[in-house]
């Protein structure tokens, strides 16, 4: 009986061993698994993006803009602000139609020690694909054009990038946009034609441009051999307003070049004369940008761009404004409302003057740290020799979590753009979680 039991035990142990070995073999054969069914298409999808961003700004107490903003206020050495934002991107698709929504709620504890809540609809539009060639989009949509990294003079339907956060999403405008695309065989590989209508009323797109208008924009794109070529036309109330083009190609596998040009009729520039009076002049402007992007063997990427902002102020006009600020702050308080109005309306553009040089070097995975990218940049104002220097450290090791540390320092003489900014430096930390 005992023997029999032992025999049975041995048999079952042997079976177990076989099963165990088979299982081990199965595991080793299936070292990597991929359950692709969880990636089957669903009619709806949504992504939530949660961001926390503390900012620390070092104030430039010797600048004219500091004197203006801290007039009759308690002086400060720095500003700190804290922002938490929740962005919901969702879409629902049926048949040939798709609806997209992108909303952001942003809660900030501001530099003035106050809580501020801002809710924005970045995008809310419907898309209809009539065929592979034709599609129609109606609603609020972010439309981005141009080949420049830091500036896009041909972005006729989009907002300009924030030079402190170039890759940030931008709020769209209410548009009706039709796309026609066609592929061909030959030197012209494909082309597309995109007419866009942008209405401006008291209730919609009021920040697109001043006054009510109906704007028609035509974008055409051609891939000729290995070159991207785009043309843009902007008509305001059936009258010609702007025209432009951009071009990009790789002249070597690791060397890309690009350029943008835009001509605009009757651009109004507000500027201070030496009698401290704001004058307005209308002129036709030629904005352009040349740039290159090079990838070196070390995996280092260099971006260099030169840009010309034709409607920008010259050195004399900048000095007149700073002199007006000094006069308003120290001697002539009656001038203060005009100076403050000018600062908020005409002195808040990304590029105030005319000629800039931008260079950025980024290095992915330095010291073999996977998912880590370090970069440095300089934005040099060629006209007044002032500059902004900064950098960014990005770490995306953890799934759906992105950590970013950014800093910038401003340098310049008196009466120069970056020398007279209210801040002399800024540091931000961004924690972004996507789920």
């Amino acid at each position, binding site marked *: 009986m005992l023997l029999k039991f032992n025999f049975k035990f041995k048999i079952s142990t042997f079976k177990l061993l076989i099963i165990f070995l088979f299982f081990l073999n199965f595991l080793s*054969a*299936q070292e*990597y*698994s*991929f359950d*692709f069914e969880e*990636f*089957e*298409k669903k009619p709806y999808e949504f*992504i939530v993006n949660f961001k926390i961003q503390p900012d620390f700004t070092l104030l430039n107490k010797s600048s004219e803009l500091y004197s203006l903003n801290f007039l009759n206020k308690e002086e400060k050495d720095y500003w700190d602000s804290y922002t938490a934002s929740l962005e919901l991107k969702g879409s629902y*698709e049926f048949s040939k139609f*798709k609806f997209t929504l992108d909303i952001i709620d942003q809660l900030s504890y501001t530099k003035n020690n106050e809580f501020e809540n801002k809710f924005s609809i970045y995008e809310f539009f419907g*898309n209809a694909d009539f065929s*592979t*060639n034709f599609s129609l989009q109606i609603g609020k949509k*972010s*439309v*981005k*054009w*141009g*080949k420049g990294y830091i500036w896009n003079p041909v972005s006729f339907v*989009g907002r300009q990038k924030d030079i402190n956060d170039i*890759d*940030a*999403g*931008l709020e769209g405008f209410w548009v009706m946009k039709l*796309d026609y*695309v*066609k*592929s061909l065989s030959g030197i012209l590989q*494909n082309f*597309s034609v995109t007419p866009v209508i942008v209405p401006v009323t008291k209730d919609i797109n009021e920040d697109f441009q001043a006054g009510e208008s109906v704007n028609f924009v035509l974008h055409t*794109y051609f*891939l000729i051999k*290995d070159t*991207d070529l785009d043309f843009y036309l902007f008509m305001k109330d059936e009258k010609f307003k702007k025209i432009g083009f951009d071009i*990009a190609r*790789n002249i070597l*596998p*690791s060397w*890309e070049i*690009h350029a943008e040009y835009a001509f605009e009729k009757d651009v109004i520039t507000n500027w201070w004369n030496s009698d401290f009076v704001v004058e307005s002049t209308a002129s036709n402007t030629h904005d352009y940008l040349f740039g290159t*992007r090079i*990838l070196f063997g070390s*995996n280092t*990427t260099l971006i260099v761009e030169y840009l010309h902002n034709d409607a920008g102020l010259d050195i004399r006009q900048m000095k007149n404004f700073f002199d007006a600020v000094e006069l308003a702050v120290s001697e002539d308080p009656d001038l203060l409302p005009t100076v403050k109005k000018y600062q908020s309306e005409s002195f808040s553009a990304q590029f105030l003057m005319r000629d800039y040089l931008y260079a950025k070097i980024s290095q*992915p*995975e330095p010291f*073999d740290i*996977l*998912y880590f990218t370090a970069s440095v940049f300089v934005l040099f104002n060629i006209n007044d020799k002032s500059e902004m220097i900064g950098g960014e450290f990005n770490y*995306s*090791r953890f*799934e*759906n*979590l*992105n950590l970013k540390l950014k800093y910038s320092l401003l340098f310049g003489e008196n009466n120069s753009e970056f020398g007279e900014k209210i801040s002399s430096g800024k540091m931000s930390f961004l924690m*972004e979680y*996507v*789920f």
Partner: protein
Amino acid sequence: MFKKISLIGKILLLILAINTSFLFAQEISEAGNKLLKEIDRNLTPESFESLKKIINIEPNGTEKEFVLFVLKKGNDKMVTTFLSPKSEVGRSTLRLDENMWLYIPNVGKPMRITSLQSVIGGIFNNSDIMQLDYTSEYDVIEMVDEEGEKVLTLQAKTFNVAYDQLKMWVNVEHKTPSKIECYTPSGMLIKTLHFKEIKDFGNGIIRPSVLETDSPLHKDYKAVMIYANIKPRKIDDEVFTLNYMDKIKDLRE
């Protein structure tokens, strides 16, 4: 007289030898390129969709996974888009022959990139992820037998290709690669691709389902690509344009 005939004979023999070796090399090259074409078709149909999971494995064993949806047509058109992780969803890469563009949803417009960059970090670069048919980028210059496998030496047709030379070990039974070594023009080994786990994907597609990579430049790091759901599909050419880069994930069937 004897000497004169001998000299002419020597010259004729030399010409014959050169000619024969040239013809032999040409024959090898033709046979090699024919085999390479068969390998291309065994790896993927001419026009297809598929899913790819990429796993980056660090020396300490930590892993990060990415899932991509892939569409390819003919020799020169391919587009991929990220389906996972959520932070990367919608990030798409388009390849038209030697031109390559990256679309990032926040940035909102395509920008030109190169095949040597990596959209995911780690060992796989864009060229590995967006691999076109080998015949469209390489010529076979040598074919030898080695331990039951054919070994092909492939030379890049242009300097635009990510790797100047490949050494490909071919599984003779399935006519698919079992190993590929990638070299620079100076002959330096950049990475080795190991093709594993032959699988029947249906529609006559029997091929390795796992591609494992290591590189002497990234010691102890490893990257793995797992293929799934490879199936032939008719795709319009217009899908491979900049206009479509923001809606590639919607093209899943």
